[in-house]
């Protein structure tokens, strides 16, 4: 049965590739080639550092394994729908498969992916390290297989547990907080390890030792312990890895069982509506705004962002964190205006460049109503702006205080708002020209080139805005220059929403096809 599921996984990969046409085939082949090259490069590094037989070399190998493992865990947290060609466990429920058969099949299917092969190639690099005897090389080979199983099983378990958490309101809140903390934790870990690599050769032994007791580090340390003649230490590390795999499978099984039991949590959204004209859809902050198409779209979009659509939730929690992380790296060496423009671009880009992407089949109800889609587009973009303006204001003020740029705060705020306006202009264009359903992973993969092109356009416009700003400061004070660029950005956004909204009204067919597909 496991082999049947394995073959199903391969068939899904093939189907996904065929569905995307020639581009899909190129993407598919390129994915495998890149994965193998990455794996070989990583494996070579592991072999070189293992051959050195030094504390620093061992530490780098363990750090590399830990980073790989973290990337496996982070993927389902940051991109919950990634792996669209994976087998949906829910669809397997209708067949007479035991839970063991399901898990084994899904696990083996998970091993037949470019990322799993790359992970294996990195881990197996130690088999060609100098100074290993034959038995150690065989054990390293087994530990490499264990490492891949550890990564795949933990990743699948996290994916299932995360999906289970997102099904209930309280779980959603917890998942959002955990994923945020996790992202910050990984950033801090990367920062810390960079500093360690720079300075602490003496501490390498201690760090390596600590890492070797963590699940990914333990997998990497099995070979190192054998090389050093400590078979007992290697066995203990193997127990840690196998134990973690078992725990992951238990968690995964629990999440699948929970789904079958139908414990999806409550999604009631009780709200008190005081006045007769207050509608449940309209968030309290917008009560009093004139009812109409734009308010309907704005309200629906805000509801999805806070916190109905799991994918939208990811967007509004993770992207600000990434924006802040990147901003921090820029703030020390650049003026506050530059770091805030970059931070805002990162935060705003995902929010406005595909505003229909969360609607799913609901878009058909919108189109069928005969409402002006121009106003729907405007409402959705304004909804995102309503969230972005206070957020970037807070971040800008915090950055100004932390990095002692209080004198630049006004201009930096205008830089943030100008960036939002420019990205909104680009967003109206890309939301109409290349909309896609964010719930479909194959859609996202196919859209990646377009997303990158859109990002390129936004960056180019931002650079042009920067040049215009710099040119204006020669003749007017910087605050006036900043306000002028903001005004230009707003005009661009309004014209873009109007123009592309009209286009949408003329022909909504492409939008319907793209978003409901």
């Amino acid at each position, binding site marked *: 049965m496991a082999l049947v599921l394995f073959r199903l996984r391969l068939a899904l990969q093939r189907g996904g590739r065929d569905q995307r046409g020639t581009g899909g085939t190129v993407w598919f082949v390129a994915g495998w080639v890149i994965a193998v090259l990455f794996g070989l490069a990583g494996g070579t590094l592991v072999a070189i550092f293992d051959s050195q037989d030094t504390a620093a070399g061992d530490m780098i190998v363990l750090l590399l394994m830990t980073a790989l493992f973290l990337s496996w865990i982070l993927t389902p947290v940051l991109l919950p729908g990634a792996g669209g060609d994976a087998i949906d466990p829910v669809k397997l429920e209708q067949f007479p498969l035991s839970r063991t058969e399901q898990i084994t099949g899904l696990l083996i299917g998970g091993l037949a992916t470019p990322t799993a092969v790359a992970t294996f190639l990195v881990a197996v690099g130690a088999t060609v390290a100098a100074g290993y005897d034959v038995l150690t090389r065989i054990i390293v080979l087994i530990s490499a297989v264990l490492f891949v199983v550890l990564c795949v099983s933990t990743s699948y378990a996290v994916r299932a547990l995360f999906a289970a958490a997102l099904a209930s309101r309280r779980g959603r809140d917890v998942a959002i907080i955990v994923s945020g903390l996790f992202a910050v934790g990984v950033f801090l870990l990367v920062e810390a390890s960079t500093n360690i690599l720079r300075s602490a050769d003496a501490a390498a032994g201690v760090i390596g030792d600590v890492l070797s007791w963590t699940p990914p580090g333990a997998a990497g340390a099995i070979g190192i312990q054998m090389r050093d003649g400590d078979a007992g230490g290697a066995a203990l590390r193997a127990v840690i890895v196998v134990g973690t795999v078992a725990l992951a499978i238990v968690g995964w099984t629990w999440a699948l069982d929970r789904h079958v039991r139908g414990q*999806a949590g409550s*999604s*009631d*959204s*009780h*709200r008190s*509506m005081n006045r*007769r*004209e*207050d*509608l*449940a*859809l*309209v968030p309290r902050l917008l009560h009093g705004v004139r*009812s*109409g*198409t734009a*308010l*309907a779209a704005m*309200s*629906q979009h805000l*509801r*999805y962002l806070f916190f*109905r*659509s799991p994918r939208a939730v990811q967007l509004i929690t993770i992207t600000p964190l990434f924006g802040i992380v990147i901003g921090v790296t820029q703030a020390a060496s650049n003026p506050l205006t530059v770091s805030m423009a970059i931070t805002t671009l990162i935060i705003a880009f995902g929010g406005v460049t595909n505003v229909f992407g969360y*609607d*799913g*089949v*609901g*878009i*058909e*109800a*919108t*189109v*069928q*109503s*005969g*409402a*002006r889609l121009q106003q*729907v587009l405007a409402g959705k973009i304004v909804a995102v702006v309503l969230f972005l303006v206070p957020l970037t204001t807070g971040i800008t003020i915090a950055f100004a205080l932390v990095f002692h740029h209080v004198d630049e705060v006004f201009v930096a705020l205008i830089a943030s708002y100008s960036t939002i306006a420019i990205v909104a202009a680009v967003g109206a264009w890309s939301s109409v020209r290349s909309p896609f359903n964010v719930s479909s992973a194959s859609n996202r993969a196919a859209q990646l080139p377009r997303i990158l092109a859109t990002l390129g356009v936004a960056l180019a416009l931002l650079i042009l805005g920067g040049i215009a700003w710099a040119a204006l400061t020669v003749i007017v004070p910087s605050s006036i220059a900043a306000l002028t660029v903001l005004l230009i950005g707003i005009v661009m956004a309004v014209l873009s929403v109007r123009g592309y909204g009209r286009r949408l*009204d003329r022909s909504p*067919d492409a939008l*319907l096809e793209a978003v*409901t597909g």
Partner: protein
Amino acid sequence: MLTAIGISGLKKAFGDAHVIQDLSLTIPTGSFYGLAGPNGAGKTTTIRMIAGLLRPDGGTIEVDGVSVWPDPRAAKRILGYVPDNPTLFSRLSAREMLDYAGMLRGMESATIRERGDDLLRVLGLEADADRQIADFSLGMTKRVGLAVAILHSPRVLILDEPFGSLDPVNTQVMEQLLARYRDGGGSVVFSSHVLDVVERLCDRVAVIAGGTLVAEGTVRELAGTGSLEDAFVGIVGGRELKKEDLGWLSSSSD
């Protein structure tokens, strides 16, 4: 005779498959009109073109005298449409979905709330009004779809397989609701495989097969002295299992 929906020379192809071929149909105002046909006959394609969601390759469609294509927005304002699998925002609650539909149609907030409450009560959704649609059964989703379609009191209501997945109680409620809507001057057009419902409710029936109109008339004209189902099989052609087909089904599974 006033016309609720007028279709003339309608054509639609998907690639090489000519799904609708030169279809013409006149649906009188105030009627209860059934569209029947075998699977893949083109009923849903026709309905989606009438609803302004699918652009025809040729021909014309008018709803209450308003031309649907090339600009379907005006026609959409005067019709309500319930798809086979209602296309709703699954992460909104039933009440929020009604608010959304009403606001898109330019209705006053107080009217939306008043009519929304009425519809939720009549359709037995009051207790679940604040739950997300994603948690609803298909039958409940269909009732929300119907509520969304009639909230603005359209002149023409089009339903694609409205009675599938409804329990007998809700089927009865929906029949009464549609009858009341028709009595108020509205026109109802629906497609269905459930021919006894078509026979019971409809004034007239059109049978579509292979993308063309193969029969049209009152239920009595089509059914004659027999049942509509027998007449339908006679019109589109029946298919019976041969004795030797699926013989293994007569033995129990091991």
